């Protein structure tokens, strides 16, 4: 019965998004909306192209994954296989704490520390940029990646590792050639979870990315799919094309999340089959 409430909510949101997201797409034109390079919703002759947002979200997420996954992965291998109990419990507590920090705090710290540092280090006019967003996102997805990977690595049967060691492989060889391959679908699930978290994040990136609708470039101010919706919602008038277009952006974001979820389910199912 309670399960039905959840299913009902999901259905309701899906239907609502489709109904309210489609009109603007139809009015603007599917291709022009998705692949238009200019977003100027408040100009005298408004244009509604969301390609900058889509690409920013993809690049930002990809950047966070490239930066966050190796760090998270090696941390997980270290904690699961090498670290002694004491070290592990201390670092795990820190990771859990990292997971619990509200995203607005990430944004705040990023704004006060990261943005000025980027401006100084790379001598660019404004530090609020895609790079700042990538770094913040990379840190935000770390706990997810570490925790899910650790669970997968801990579940690798000890017999596999014993067999490898008994063949004269070193412990490190054993972890990377036997344990990690045996845990690979769990680790893949961790990465997908990280992608989901990164692409859906709004608050922190809004505070550090500059929030200007440019085509993405590392040191330019950019706007993500999430922040595009959040930043204009407050002043768009109900029923206007601008507001409807925001719903359409939300629909696009929703489709991305759906895709990621499908990928996640695929990996988890593969994990179970073994």
């Amino acid at each position: 019965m309670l399960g039905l409430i959840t299913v009902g909510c999901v259905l309701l949101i899906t239907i609502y998004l489709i109904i309210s997201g489609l009109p603007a797409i139809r009015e603007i034109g599917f291709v022009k909306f998705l692949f238009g390079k200019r977003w100027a919703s408040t100009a005298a002759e408004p244009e509604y192209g969301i390609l900058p947002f889509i690409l920013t979200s993809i690049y930002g997420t990809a950047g966070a994954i490239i930066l966050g996954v190796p760090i998270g992965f090696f941390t997980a291998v270290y904690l699961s296989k090498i670290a002694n109990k004491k070290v592990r419990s201390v670092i795990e507590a820190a990771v859990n704490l990292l997971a619990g920090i509200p995203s607005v705090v990430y944004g705040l710290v990023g704004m006060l520390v990261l943005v000025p540092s980027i401006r100084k280090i790379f001598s660019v006019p404004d530090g609020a940029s895609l790079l700042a967003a990538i770094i913040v996102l990379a840190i935000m997805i770390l706990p997810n990646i570490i925790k899910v990977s650790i669970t997968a690595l801990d579940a690798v049967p000890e017999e596999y590792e014993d067999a490898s060691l008994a063949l004269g492989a070193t412990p490190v060889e054993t972890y990377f050639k036997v344990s990690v391959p045996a845990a690979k679908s769990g680790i893949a699930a961790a990465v997908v979870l990280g992608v989901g978290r990164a692409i859906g994040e709004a608050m922190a990136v809004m505070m550090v990315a500059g929030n200007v609708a440019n085509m993405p470039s590392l040191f330019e101010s950019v706007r993500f799919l999430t922040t595009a919706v959040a930043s204009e919602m407050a002043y768009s008038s109900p029923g206007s094309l601008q507001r409807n277009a925001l719903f359409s952006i939300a629909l696009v974001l929703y489709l991305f999340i759906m895709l990621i979820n499908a990928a996640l389910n695929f990996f988890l199912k593969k994990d179970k089959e073994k």
Partner: protein
Amino acid sequence: MSEIITTKDLCLWYGDNQALKNINLAIPEKSITALIGPSGCGKSTFIKTLNRMNDLIPSVKITGEVNYKGRNIFSKDTDVNELRRDIGMVFQKPNPFPMSIYDNVAYGPRTHGITSRVKLNEIVEQALKDAAIWDEVSDRLKKNALSLSGGQQQRLCIARALAVKPEVLLMDEPTSALDPISTSRIEELILQLKEKYTIIIVTHNMQQAVRISDNTAFFLLGDLVEFGKTEKIFSQPKDKRTEDYITGRFG
């Protein structure tokens, strides 16, 4: 026949619990030595000491010596990985890696730096033939090893151990998880392997010890009670405790 492994006053503790007490044993080369005794008598602990797999358990403390080819394996200049290459191990439960049959056997040689495809093919084929499983798997080397039956998995594990060309093969109750037919195939295999390898096998099954081993060591509560020719141990045991055990009075 010369002795390949000798132990001198070998003691081992798990924390405060002494699991091996002054074990002195000399294992002859290219023979089968069976270790028998009731559960918890230290025979598995003993076998795991010989390739230093006990190093992995943090609370273990060891005194005394184990000499492999005249060198103490606990001395500082012993390379543990090299030692484990020379002294292979087959476990109680078949534990093939979740990869293809080929990759399972090639794992050891690859780890030790062999990359040539031709060479690997050769080693894999030879190891599978030596483990008497080649005919059953030669047409499906790319299949996942976990798709094999339990008995086949165990012979694959033996092939995997043989692929690194060890001198000694430690077997920790290798047939206890298998059905009688698979068990007899593995026993036949062990008898064949004796020509090239020294085999030390832990077994719960006294008939098995009689069938395959040349020498038998009887362990009880961490003591080595008796060691000698298998037919002697089972026909005229010197120690009363050995006699009680092999006649089934306890254990």
